[in-house]
């Protein structure tokens, strides 16, 4: 994938493109239905990739395969050179036990469409719970970091609020802060703004733009073409479990090569 002559990007393009996520020929089936039919793509460190496609095309499934919430039936996925969900010794591949999978997931953050905040914890506790419980960060340090992250998403004044007391947009920003607290190498977003009222979408996208500008590697499933245009290095269009088209945003959006891409873009723009 060629790097963009993307003048709209506020951050420097990665000087040396080093692949962080490599997926090759990923296949996944539910029962006899094949949902992913061989997905191959690469995301370089510091890049933002937007994943688009009609409903049921397998975008969420692919995202969930990356952090092994779903196990794949073929192909391979590696993050930072490490095979996800499997351990390779000599030429044999062994399935990992849940503890090892949990360790791998610490460096892959995920933000969900329906936020999935822990409702019995305050906003701040949502953020420090995993660093303290999983990474054994001292609690004082985690609390301080939690407040910094809340401040970064503009919600420091709501640290003590429970999720039920927050608006959807605020919940999603807390969820992003929660994912960031684990210092992930890679952040996955599954339609982070689809469950939000239109006037709240902007805040969440602004937070994501800032992250992108700071050099976070992100894969974003979204229908927000405007965001993809301005924040993505690459856009991948999926349909029916295959990658139909990919490239820099300007190319895919302004000059789509495939009729299915054209049809989809016409339906969402």
């Amino acid at each position, binding site marked *: 994938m060629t790097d963009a002559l993307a003048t709209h990007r506020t951050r420097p393009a990665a000087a040396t493109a080093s692949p962080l996520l490599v997926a090759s020929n990923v296949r996944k089936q539910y029962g006899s239905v094949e949902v992913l039919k061989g997905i191959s793509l690469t995301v370089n460190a510091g890049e933002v990739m937007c994943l688009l496609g009609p409903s049921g095309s397998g975008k969420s499934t692919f995202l969930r395969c990356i952090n092994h919430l779903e196990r794949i039936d073929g192909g391979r996925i590696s993050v930072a050179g490490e095979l996800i969900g499997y351990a390779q010794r000599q030429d044999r591949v062994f399935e990992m036990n849940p503890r090892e999978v949990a360790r791998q997931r610490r460096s892959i953050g995920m933000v*969900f469409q329906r936020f999935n905040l822990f409702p019995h914890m305050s906003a701040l506790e949502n953020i420090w*719970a995993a660093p303290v419980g999983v990474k054994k960060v001292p609690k004082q340090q985690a609390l301080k970091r939690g407040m910094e992250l809340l401040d970064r998403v503009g919600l420091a004044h709501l640290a003590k609020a429970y999720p039920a007391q927050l608006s959807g947009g605020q919940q999603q920003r807390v969820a992003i802060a929660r994912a960031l607290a684990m210092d992930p190498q890679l952040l996955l977003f599954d339609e982070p703004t689809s469950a939000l009222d239109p006037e709240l979408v*902007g805040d969440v996208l602004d937070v994501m733009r800032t992250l992108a500008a700071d050099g976070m590697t992100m894969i974003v499933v979204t229908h927000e073409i405007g965001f993809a245009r301005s924040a993505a290095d690459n856009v991948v269009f999926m349909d029916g479990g295959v990658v139909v088209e990919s490239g820099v945003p300007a190319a895919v959006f302004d000059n789509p090569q495939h009729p299915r891409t054209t049809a989809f873009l016409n339906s969402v723009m």
Partner: protein
Amino acid sequence: MKQVSTLPAPHVGETGSTTASTADDVVAVPLRHPWRWIVAGALALGFVALFSSLWTNPNIDHATISSYVFHPRILSGIGLTLVVTVVSMLVSTVLGVLLAVMRLSKNPVMNAFAWFYVWVFRGTPLLIQIVFWGYLGLLYSQISLGIPFTDFTVFSVDTNTLVPAFTAGLLAMTLNQAAYSAEIIRGGLVSVDAGQQEAAASLGMSPAYTLFRVVLPQAMRVITPPMGNETISMLKNTSLLSVIAVLELYTVATQISSQNLRQVELLVVVSCWYLFLTSVLSVPQYYLERHYGRGSARQPGPTPLGRLMSSFRKGKQPESKGPVND
């Protein structure tokens, strides 16, 4: 980052920011509830009549009742009843969590074991289980630890020494309760949204950590009310232990009444105590419910006393309005 644009500054809205009475306000006479008072009065009258008929009944000796309410033997029986209830409830809850998790696990062996356990202990009468544990000595006169089908033994003791009546009773109550608790806890675990486990997994939490930090605390909201019921049942069911002569409250009372032939009086004493103890046990349940309900409601509800008072108060709501600025 600087961006906080959409957070509206508090109280800048133009609508609904004042409670000062204006011409548009509806000044309503609160709805009255005359039937509440009439029904309450009728019920009170009925209870007074019932109690006075019991109180003046010449066949009941009040002196016996009052002399046995705080009798040392009765008090020691209460002690044992409470010990059995509390220990059995605690241990069976731990077992119940274990069984529920086994039942929900993908491991077919664990799953089948948990299913079988619940099937056996829920499917046979508690009374029979109590008698079974009490008569264990008839079934196995010796209990020994060793390698099965060989002569090698580490130790061997007489069953009746290892399992006296009290231990047998404790075992019976605990193992039986575990089966019921397991089903309640399983229901609670299943009620927690699957997205919670995914979020926990995506943060790198292990399955066990997810259970204790994320899923169980949320399940407790669903688990606590039926477990309160179970605790009260347990307290009353300890009286069944009289069949294997565990010296709990009811056993003690029947022993006393078989000597002084004051059966009714002692039943009154015992019933009053059970009523008192079950009332006391509902207090921790209430506070557990409030604790685990945090985050689920926008405001904690009123206390029971406050609720009772407000139901009789006319119109006025107990919630206080937040501070208002103009």
